[in-house]
């Protein structure tokens, strides 16, 4: 078990990503942040705050629950149905550049489900993927556009992201 990112490092990574977003997209116009529940949501909120501080733009922010789009729902391995939370996207995504935000990128299946969900909401101009941690072991051709930190792991290990808003503290821990 090891803490691979502390609160300080996390804040700096998120701020750095905010700068990268503004730089790569030549400003913050027509952007929107969508956090994947559960922990993608606070990260997206922090990014919105940082982008506001940098570029003085209010980037609309939404929350997406991808449970209904998962590809593993009906398999016995999952057991009883996972609980669904509300999706809240209170703005039109047509012609916007969507920044899809999640805490950990692993097999890529969550991202695929999120892409399917977003497409059902409208037709964005483009979608870029933001993750705090990329732990490797992709099973689909998915690549993150912005990464907080790359942490190579083995399949037996698990990566726990904890956030102040949900868990009471900011840290990333690798177990196993």
């Amino acid at each position, binding site marked *: 078990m090891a803490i691979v990112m502390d609160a300080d490092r996390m804040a700096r990574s998120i701020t750095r990503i905010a700068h990268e977003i503004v730089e790569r997209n030549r400003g913050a116009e027509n952007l929107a942040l969508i956090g994947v529940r559960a922990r993608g949501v606070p990260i997206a909120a922090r990014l919105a705050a940082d982008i506001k501080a940098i570029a003085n733009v209010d980037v609309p922010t939404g929350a997406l629950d991808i449970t*209904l789009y998962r590809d593993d729902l009906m398999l016995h391995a999952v057991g*009883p149905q996972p609980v669904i939370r509300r999706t809240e996207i209170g703005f039109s995504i047509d012609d916007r550049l969507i920044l899809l935000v999640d805490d950990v990128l692993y097999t890529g299946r969550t991202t695929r489900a999120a892409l399917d969900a977003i497409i059902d909401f409208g037709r964005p101009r483009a979608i870029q993927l933001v993750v705090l941690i990329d732990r490797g072991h992709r099973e689909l051709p998915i690549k993150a556009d912005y990464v907080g930190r790359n942490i190579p792991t083995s399949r037996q290990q698990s990566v726990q992201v904890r956030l102040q808003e949900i868990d009471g503290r900011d840290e990333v821990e690798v177990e196993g």
Partner: protein
Amino acid sequence: MTTVATSLRTRHLLGIEDLTAPEIDLVLQTASAMKEVGTRPIKKVPTLRGRTIINLFFEPSTRTRMSFELAEKRLSADTLGMTTSGSSVVKGETLADTARTIEAMSPDMIVIRHASSGAPHQLARISRASIINAGDGMHEHPTQGLLDAFTMLERKGRLAGLKVAIVGDLLHSRVFRSNALLLTKMGAEVRACGPATLMPFGMARLGIHTTSSIDEAVAGADVVMMLRVQHERMQGLFLPSMREYFNLFGLTVARLKHAAPDVIVMHPGPMNRGVEIDSEVADGPWSVILDQVANGVAVRMAVLYLLAGGEGGEP
């Protein structure tokens, strides 16, 4: 404050009597998420893709059937409807044989509405599919109870402590039974009101107050639910006339004034305007009758989703 369950124990939804309060909370919470799907431009999620759901309706019903079909389609399931008039049931096939014929097509879920209480239970003994009761005889109509509760929760923010008056032919009403069971499980206060000839047994043991005075039932009520009264009740010597029924039990604006100031009026539909409910009330600001219909799709999506899990529970 009840905790929310994380899954349903049963494979079937045969009645509210089989659900615990935490499980009811789970259905209502899931329904909230499902309701949002109906606000999107593409009102569809792939969750039940490839699942086969058969709607077995032995009794005519437009709104419940449509509501279930819409719920199933929004979850991307393959749905098939069977209503009595177009099937071999008319030729005298028993429920058991119809069930076995359908079972041979390996459905994943069967939604059944039938005139005999207990028909879904019989189906559950024959079929390996998950069975959802869409109304059996005088017994239960669980998805109606759930969508009514969802509507109340949406408008009032809570179920515990709500004063709910349910008025009508309670004896023959499966909607009443499901609502009464659900509301008492969730801590609401139920007032059962109707003519003495149409009052069911066993209300005291459920903790439900009974009265044949609509004014007493409506006084201070947060929710007033009116049930349909059928013309056949006059033949069975239950009621002298619809006119007298309306005089004694009809919900008018004047009567509604004695309820709580933010009272909501509900009706499972279809309404007999001028028999159990005045048009002014049905179309007025207190009425959430159309909300009930919209919520029906979301609640049924929630039920289908929760029962469709890989493991489920014990049959």
